[in-house]
């Protein structure tokens, strides 16, 4: 009992006496780490408590294991009773706080958290990190600070010194972190995974401290660390012998550090994207092979075939190879690939490919699972057919923007690669209904298909709907589709999670209603510029309780009642884009504020929203990203008030005309809280351009 009392006194704003009396009522000796439960509910909890008494802690823990999918379930669980609350507190391992100022309280509730993800907190001060270090001294294993600012080397040092179990820390995107911070990281002796992407101020000295201080490093990401050179990287390679994964993309490294990297005996994953200092000479000068290397990314490299075959001959164990934006893929490349018996994935995005080249790749590789030819020029039916015929196990194929391929290719793809799970073929506009029919006929394992900007019609869509496992279907800008086709999708694709209907103008409520009925797992739907849809669609979509991302941009028939239905039905909604839905007004905002407590991003441009609606919206504590352009009813005062009220904001797009009306002090204050402003100066444009006109324009652009 005393222990309980002690714990209570540490919670500010709560009288210890109150908790003490409550504890007298509870029959359990183990006291609740009292905090956030609302005192109103407590008496009820106590009453119900007895009915769950037989459930032991182990059982509760097992139940909690099953509740991972939906965060609300856990919340509900913890509200059942005090013991449930305590069980949930002890069970939680992962924490993604929204605001860092509540960290101390939150940590006292969840003592066994191991993973701390601060990616939703724009500002995390040294104090918060010190609190983490203090209360999760031994348990915390992973900290993600990649999206946070305002902490310094002092905070990092407190983490590194106090948390002996810290194995993973992400400090990416802190362009102002310097060597001191790096030296602080170097004090985390047990660190295994470290991300320092875009930490441009870190120099070799700092990296040297890390290399010496963290000998157990397995993963190191130094992408865009422009302050580093060969010396630092070389030292890392010498000191951290356990490195498995090393990302050196876009660094100013040269051949000097390559030999020591290739001596890392466990290295599996090496990324050298866009390293301008690494050329043929560097690759040719390599004397030693790296047998353990499995993943090699040489995208955006200025190497020729000579250097490439040199490095490939030294990495016989390669499973994945990325050569995106490699200049020219020809027949002679196959020599290098022949040695790679384990090669499963090859990415040639943006390369200039010849048919002979594809053919020789197809014949020299033994068994490819993944092939990406996205945006390659020179991909023909002949080349593609020859490569897919050899690799019947292909699971993922990306032929985005290979505009010359026709049904011939699809015939060979579908005939040989029946186990395809992912097919991306945006802008392959020569493929006809026959091709889609073949897909629907043979590729029953297909889970993801991207047919954006294809010549897809209702017939084709009907054929595709035979792929019952589809989770992601993207059929944006397929102007020939209407409800008739979409109904089939709704009827036969129950696993659908993602549906992109961007500018599929033929779609009306009928199709959407069918989808909403047939696809209960729907998480994301894009109905932008489907001018035919109304509130009916939204009301039907509100049945999809998992919906988190909804875009109804440019749907002028939608009004507040539709949005209200969504916000009541889809409690997990996080992203909402309702730009140019002119009839949406404050009423929608009021319901959103009431029900959609998870809303994180919203676009309200051109809506009929006034200060009242925006202020209501500002009460959503999760809200981070707002785009509020051309709101006729918005006054500077209302905007200022809602900016002040919405403390979690990280990014706000505003019209530049407001800039002069809002006090500079206020802007500075909001910015100091971690929000960045983007001032847009677009003219007010009410009219929606017809979709046909839009497509014509985009095609004209392409021809040019």
């Amino acid at each position: 009992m005393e222990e309980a009392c002690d714990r209570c006194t540490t919670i500010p704003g709560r009288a210890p006496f109150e908790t003490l009396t409550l504890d007298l009522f509870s029959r359990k000796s183990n006291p609740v780490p009292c905090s956030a439960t609302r005192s109103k509910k407590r008496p009820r909890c106590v009453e119900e408590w007895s009915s769950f008494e037989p459930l032991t802690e182990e059982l509760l823990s097992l139940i909690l294991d099953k509740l991972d999918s939906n965060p609300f379930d856990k919340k509900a669980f913890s509200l059942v009773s005090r013991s449930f609350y305590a069980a949930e507190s002890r069970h939680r391992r992962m924490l993604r706080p929204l605001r860092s100022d509540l960290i101390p309280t939150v940590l006292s509730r969840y003592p066994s958290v191991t993973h701390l993800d601060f990616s939703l907190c724009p500002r995390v001060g040294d104090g918060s990190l010190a609190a983490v270090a203090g209360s999760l001294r031994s348990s915390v294993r992973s900290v993600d600070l990649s999206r946070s600012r305002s902490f310094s080397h002092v905070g990092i040092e407190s983490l590194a010194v106090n948390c002996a179990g810290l194995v993973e820390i992400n400090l990416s995107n802190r362009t102002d972190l310097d060597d001191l911070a790096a030296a602080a990281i170097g004090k985390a002796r047990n660190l295994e995974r470290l991300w320092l992407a875009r930490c441009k101020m870190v120099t070799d000295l700092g990296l040297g401290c890390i290399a010496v201080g963290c000998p157990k490093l397995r993963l190191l990401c130094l992408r865009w660390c422009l302050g580093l050179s060969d010396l630092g990287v070389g030292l890392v390679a010498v000191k951290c012998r356990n490195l498995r994964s090393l990302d050196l993309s876009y660094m100013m490294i040269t051949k000097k550090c390559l030999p020591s990297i290739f001596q890392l005996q466990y290295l599996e994953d090496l990324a050298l994207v866009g390293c301008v200092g690494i050329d043929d000479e560097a690759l040719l000068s390599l004397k030693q092979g790296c047998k353990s290397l499995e993943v090699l990314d040489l995208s955006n490299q200025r190497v020729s075939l000579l250097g490439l075959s040199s490095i490939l001959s030294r990495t016989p164990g390669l499973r994945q190879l990325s050569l995106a934006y490699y200049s020219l893929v020809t027949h002679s490349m196959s020599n290098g690939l022949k040695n790679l018996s384990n090669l499963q994935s090859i990415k040639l995005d943006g390369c200039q490919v010849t048919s002979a080249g594809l053919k020789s790749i197809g014949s020299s590789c033994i068994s490819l699972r993944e092939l990406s030819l996205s945006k390659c020029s020179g991909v023909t039916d002949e080349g593609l057919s020859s490569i897919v015929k050899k690799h019947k196990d292909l699971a993922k194929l990306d032929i985005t923007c290979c505009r010359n391929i026709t049904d011939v290719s699809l015939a060979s793809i579908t005939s040989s690669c029946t186990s395809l799970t992912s097919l991306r073929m945006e802008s392959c506009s020569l493929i006809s209904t026959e091709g889609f029919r073949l897909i629907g006929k043979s590729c029953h394992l297909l889970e993801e298909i991207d047919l954006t900007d294809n010549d897809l019609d209702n017939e084709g869509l009907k054929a595709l709907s035979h792929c019952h496992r589809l989770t992601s279907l993207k059929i944006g800008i397929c102007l020939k589709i209407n409800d008739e086709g979409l109904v089939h999708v709704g009827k036969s694709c129950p696993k659908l999670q993602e549906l992109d209907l961007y500018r599929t103008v033929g779609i009306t409520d009928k199709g959407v209603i069918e989808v909403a009925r047939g696809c209960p797992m729907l998480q994301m739907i894009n109905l932008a510029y489907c001018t035919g849809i109304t509130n009916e669609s939204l009301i039907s979509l509100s049945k999809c309780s998992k919906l988190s991302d909804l875009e109804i941009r440019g749907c002028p028939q939608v009004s507040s009642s539709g949005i209200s239905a969504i916000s009541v039905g889809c409690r997990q909604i996080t992203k909402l884009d309702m730009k140019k839905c002119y009839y949406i007004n404050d009423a929608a905002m009021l319901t959103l504020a009431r029900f959609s407590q998870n809303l994180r991003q919203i676009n309200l441009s051109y809506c009929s929203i006034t200060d009242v609606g925006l202020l209501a919206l500002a009460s959503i504590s999760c809200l981070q990203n707002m785009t509020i352009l051309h709101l006729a009813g918005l006054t500077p005062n209302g905007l200022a008030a809602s900016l002040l009220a919405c403390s979690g904001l990280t990014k706000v797009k505003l019209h530049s005309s407001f800039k002069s009306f809002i006090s500079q002090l206020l802007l500075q204050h909001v910015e100091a809280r971690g929000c960045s402003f983007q001032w847009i100066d677009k003219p007010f444009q009410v009219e929606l351009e017809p979709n046909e006109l839009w497509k014509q324009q985009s095609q004209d652009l392409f021809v040019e």
Partner: protein
Amino acid sequence: MDHKDRPTFGNSSEMNVPSGNLNANQMFSRSGSREICFDDRSKQTIPEFTPPLHKSALYSCRPELIIAKPGPIESSSFVNNQAMDWDPRAMLGNLSFLEQKVHQIQDIVGSIMKNGGQFPLHQVDPAPGQQLMNSDLTSIVIQLISAAGALLPSMRSATANLPSNPSVAPLASIVGSGSNGSFQQNKLYPLVETMNSEYDELIKDVSDDGFEGANTIAAEDQDVKDNEDGGLDGENLPPGSYEVLQLEKEEILAPHTHFCSICGKGFKRDANLRMHMRGHGDKYKTPAALAKPTKEASLEPVLIKRYSCPFLGCKRNKEHKKFQPLKTILCVKNHYKRSHCAKSYTCRRCNTKKFSVLADLKTHEKHCGRDKWLCSCGTTFSRKDKLFGHVALFQGHSPALPSDEIKGSGASDQGRGSEAPTEVETGGNNFMANYIDNVDVLDFYKGFDNEPSNLSPLSFDPFNDGGLDEFPRASFDPLENGFSFLPSGS
């Protein structure tokens, strides 16, 4: 052998022959407060590295000498003072002091002669009285030398200079026991009054002497330069095989060495003088007059010319026991300026390093700034890749951030215990080097801050037991942070 900076040895005579010293103390009673302050400082720093060498001889043999420290402070500085602002009165005083001392010596030698007959009896176990007498003799002779040195009127900047120790050592060994001599040596430095700017030179001398062979200290600043100046260290000419010339210091310090016999204008180069001479008449315009004076010497074997430094007691001075001549006049100039002159050129970037030769300053300024690549073990490198090579080679070493950054962080990297044995050696040496380099006290701390491992017991083991106890810790209190590790080290 006389040297003006010797007076400090009055200390020992004060103890042993009080009557003789009384006069001197009265006579030299105008020591300023500044000297005393300075003296405090030097006392702090110097014993810190001398003990390791002489500890056994020093502290075990003659503990009573240590206690007597404060006495000689005064008697030390005024001699310099006298020399500094020279006046006939003081000179007279010096002379009478000399006279007195000579009488003392006479007495002592007389008594030695008297005892000489008894020697065979006491050979196995020499009487302690004999020893005392010997040391008396030593101290008096040294006093003599220093007083006589003070008589030299024109030594302007030279007052700052210490007696270089090589000259002391033989002296001490001649008269007294070796341990005695070295002790006095140690005590000497704190007592000598020097300007702040000249202070580092002082330390250099100490180190020069104390760590001969193993020292990188002087190598960094002085010896190396002397060698490149053409010191005959590697030459090993047998004495006598060359002609030794000694220029006067006025000559050495003169900006010009070639003067026109007609108008008196000075030139740095003879060629320029010859060109100048043309203006004085046609007779200087003849090809013969304009030609470079040829070496007719090629016919007959000419004695090689070598140069001696005019500074008495200097290793480059011909009187020195281990005389090492200088090769050229330029060497003499550079050596003299570096070793015996005030360092008047201050680096504008770091504002700490001072040089007496302009070229040295320029060389330094090229590298001054962020060129010290520092390892956690305290070793510095002029190049980053060398540092990284070093760090890659040794377990536990890591690059150290610049000290200002460290200070910002508040907590410096504490020593890592595991050092390769070879590192201890170099680390220790470099530590010394650093110390010597950064005479500025703050800089000195910085040096410490960055090289904690030097103070680990391991690194000091070879030559330390209790040596660090002499380290005056109290005086570092203001900067305790940097020194928090010290107790464990000592």
